[in-house]
């Protein structure tokens, strides 16, 4: 395999396995989980290899069918793509590794289609991140969205309804993106990102370009669950099966954020984006409102998964805020937070999955101090991820917030600075509430003195535990070694 072929191999590994799983499933249904793990593992390995190749040789362009861009479609494997591919594929690999017992418990009969659709979902995500063509991006966006509707529908009784609402909003979002793209196409006559980026400064501020910009931002904002277009997210993540939410929560909204970064910073660029009015400051305000709204709503939730979902709304706000600041520090904060939040949210959702698997629920009100004895490792990982979410050093979460804070100060945007700081405290409120339940005995229920109920260790099997532990370790390691990531991200700041 040469470096030239690499950009194709990564997404299409998933396509191959999406097809192979049902074919092999005819013969042996049991094989679908190992195959899905192999597929995502292969893709993760390839992205790692590709990351190294990118660092050594620079961006890789793969033209489809030998047609040179801007006529043909190309896959561009640049710094941002390499980074995002690595993040989402690693997380997907870990989540799928974890999923076997959950799948057997929660949707036994649908495992084969589930894993097949999962592969399609990842194909969509990988395609979005890889492609250098805006319409191709739309197609992959719809592939991933359709798969995620399916994945979310596999869940509890209310899951299909949540999936349907997501479908309605997601389709509107996709259509808005497509419409906006049409306006840009009218203006520039090209669909290639690099080509269009070279032309757009000449058209900046023209009505069709502005319309296109706004429509595309709104469309992607819906997919990325940017406040106030986040309505689909809490229900979808809550009602979906544990594995679906653990897979989609860390990757899905990140890919939405990727499109926003790609379109706003790379395609339009900071100056064209703000040519007519400050689109960036509007985005920043929305992101700030989303951060506060998500955090406050998370405090009000009693279901762990719903709490995490609202927390996602607020964390997406961080990423969007970072990109709206449009300075290097903010950009580093946003992209670093993509990595951090992917690791943290995957870890937290997998903890929720483990608890649901053993306890049958993840209702915070029913948590008690026996969990500490029953699931020592799971809860320890939860603690690490929670502390990181609050943004305390030396966890990863602190550093993305640190760069965001630097970014807001560089723009002298004191309102957003206050928002970040306040949301740290709000995060602390809802995470320490859980930790308090788990690590402390309930003072209202005094157990008879000296008669502690004997609690057995009911920790989940190593297969389910290992991904959680790896992610928790990753959070600490990323935090301490964030310098190498940051210097990498700094290099790809456009302009």
């Amino acid at each position, binding site marked *: 395999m040469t470096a030239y072929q690499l950009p194709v191999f990564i997404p299409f590994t998933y396509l191959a396995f999406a097809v192979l799983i049902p074919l092999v499933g005819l013969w042996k249904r049991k094989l679908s989980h190992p195959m899905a793990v192999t597929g995502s593992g292969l893709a993760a390995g390839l992205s790692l290899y590709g990351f190294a190749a990118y660092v050594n040789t620079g961006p890789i362009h793969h033209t489809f069918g030998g047609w040179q861009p801007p006529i043909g479609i190309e896959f561009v494997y640049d710094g941002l793509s390499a980074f995002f591919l690595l993040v989402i594929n690693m997380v997907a690999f870990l989540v799928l590794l974890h999923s076997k017992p959950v799948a057997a418990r929660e949707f036994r009969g649908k495992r084969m289609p589930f894993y097949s659709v999962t592969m399609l979902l990842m194909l969509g995500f990988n395609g979005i991140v890889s492609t250098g063509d805006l319409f191709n991006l739309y197609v992959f966006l719809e592939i991933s969205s359709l798969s995620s509707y399916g994945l979310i529908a596999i869940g509890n009784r209310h899951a299909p309804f949540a999936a349907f609402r997501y479908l309605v909003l997601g389709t509107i979002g996709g259509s808005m993106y497509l419409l906006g793209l049409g306006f840009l196409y009218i203006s520039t006559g090209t669909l290639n990102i690099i080509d269009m980026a070279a032309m757009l400064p000449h058209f900046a501020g023209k009505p069709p370009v502005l319309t296109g910009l706004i429509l595309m931002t709104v469309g992607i904002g819906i997919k990325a669950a940017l406040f106030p277009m986040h309505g689909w997210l809490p229900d979808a993540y809550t009602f979906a099966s544990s594995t679906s939410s653990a897979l989609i929560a860390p990757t899905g909204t990140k890919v939405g954020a990727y499109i926003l970064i790609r379109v706003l910073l790379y395609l339009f660029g900071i100056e064209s984006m703000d040519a007519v009015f400050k689109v960036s400051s509007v985005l920043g305000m929305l992101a700030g409102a989303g951060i506060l709204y998500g955090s406050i709503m998370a405090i009000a939730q009693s279901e762990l998964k719903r709490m995490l979902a609202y927390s996602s709304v607020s964390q997406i706000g961080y990423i969007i805020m970072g990109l709206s600041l449009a300075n290097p520090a903010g950009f580093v904060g946003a992209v670093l937070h993509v990595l951090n939040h992917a690791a943290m949210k995957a870890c937290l959702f997998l903890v929720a999955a483990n608890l649901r698997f053993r306890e049958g629920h993840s209702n915070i009100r029913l948590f008690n101090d026996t969990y500490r004895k029953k699931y020592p490792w799971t809860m320890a990982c939860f603690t690490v991820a929670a*502390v990181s979410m*609050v943004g*305390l*050093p*030396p966890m990863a979460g*602190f*550093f993305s*917030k*640190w*760069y965001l*804070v*630097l970014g807001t*100060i*560089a723009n002298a945007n004191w309102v957003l*600075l206050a928002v970040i*700081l306040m949301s*740290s*405290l709000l995060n*602390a409120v809802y995470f*320490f509430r859980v930790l*308090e339940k788990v*690590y*402390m*005995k309930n*003072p*209202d229920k005094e157990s008879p003195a000296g008669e502690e109920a004997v609690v057995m260790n009911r920790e989940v099997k190593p297969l389910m535990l290992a991904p959680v532990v790896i992610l928790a370790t990753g959070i600490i390691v990323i935090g*301490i070694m*964030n*310098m190498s990531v*940051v*210097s990498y991200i*700094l290099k790809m700041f456009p302009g």
Partner: protein
Amino acid sequence: MVESFAPLFPVLVSLGAVPLIVASRNKPNLRESWTILAALSKFFLVLNLLPYASQGITVEAKIFEISPGLPLLLRADPFGVYFATVASGLWILTSFYSIGYVRGAPEKKQTRYFSCFAVCLSATMGIAFAGNLLTFILFYEILTLATYPLVIHKENKEAIGAGRQYLIYTLTAGVLLIAGTAIIYSSIGQIDFRAGGILGNSAFPSNMMVWVFLLFLGGVGVKSALMPIHSWLPSAMAAPTPVSALLHAVAVVKSGVFGMIRVVGYVFGTEVMAGFGLNDILITVSGATIILASLMAFSQDNLKRRLAYSTVGHLSYVVLGAALLTPLGMAGGVMHIAAHATMKITLFFCAGAIYVNLHRQNISDLDGIAKVMPFTMASFTIASMGLAGLPPVNGFLSKWYLAMGSLEGHMVVPVLILIVSGVLNVGYFFPIVHRAYFHRGVGLSGHGEASPFMVVPIVITALLSVLLGIFPNLFFGLFDIAGVVSASIFEGVAR
């Protein structure tokens, strides 16, 4: 300046002890010996740095870059070594005392107790040796997190409430500190601690300078229990007594005032403090705190709460010393860190011994206990004399320098505050002594002194207080180092 990894080892040694403590959780004797071993080795590692400190030489360890241009920097300057010596030296005594206390009480979850204790001490060393604000914040937050389990150790309603309050106050403080640091970093591009300050007069416009200072005041002011943000400290007395003793007389609150001197002397610098009228803010706040806290101590019947309010008052002595902006005042403040540590730890140890031995917490129940606990009460008397500022205990010395310092700066009000506060200290401590010696006790027959594990540390700390009062340079030349610290801060201005 010497480049060496020597400052790193004291930080790591107790962190390294944590796995050992956890691993030997089923063998209490082995577990405690790990604690003692870690305490002793930490102390000796700190002592290794002392020769450098007394000559005014800084030992610097650049661990690695944690953010572009910002290394994780451990720098053992005289002030840091001074604080580290005090904290690590008193940890040895506290370890012995803890063993007696938790076994005598008897407390549950002792493994968690000892491991969190070890982490706290690591964090304190980190704070002492932090070479820049980011490193300082890192260890400051670790200290917050590691103290939380100790505060809620008893897991009753009161402790959990105190824990929540503690988290709210300290996390808010951490956030303010991060904001202030980020603003300074964005403005002048560096956040190293340097004797004499890094901010020039032109770093910020004048109202901005005040705001930044207020951020820092909030950040370190919470842990140094300035009024009106002190109320977590009396509540945190719900913790076991050794915790109160070490953490709320030595590690946590002293980290706060240590940070205050760092901010005043090493970040803002005396020139800026005076130029923008920031010292007036600080003098007002700390002076008010000294008087109000002493008055509030009168109304407390719970011994530990009375001690807590006394702590609040005495911490402000240190802050006052820093705020005077005179070499003698600064030296007095620095000296009061050690002086108050030895005296207050004696008092807390006494309170703990009385609680374990007689199960009495209220001052009104202490009638006649000097008969059964002569050593304890003798030590108590010595320490209260010291806090009231009576010679020959070391409290007199630091107060003397504070008074000299304020006269040096031609300020009379601080002297008056010191005198009034001395009288008030006598007023709220001597009734206790009076009760213990001259009232007839009830139900004391059959009780003797507490276990030697507890009494020996009490006597040692009391003796230390007296010896340091008579021969200030007897141990490690601490008195001289305080002078060196103060001189370096003011020489930095001259240079």
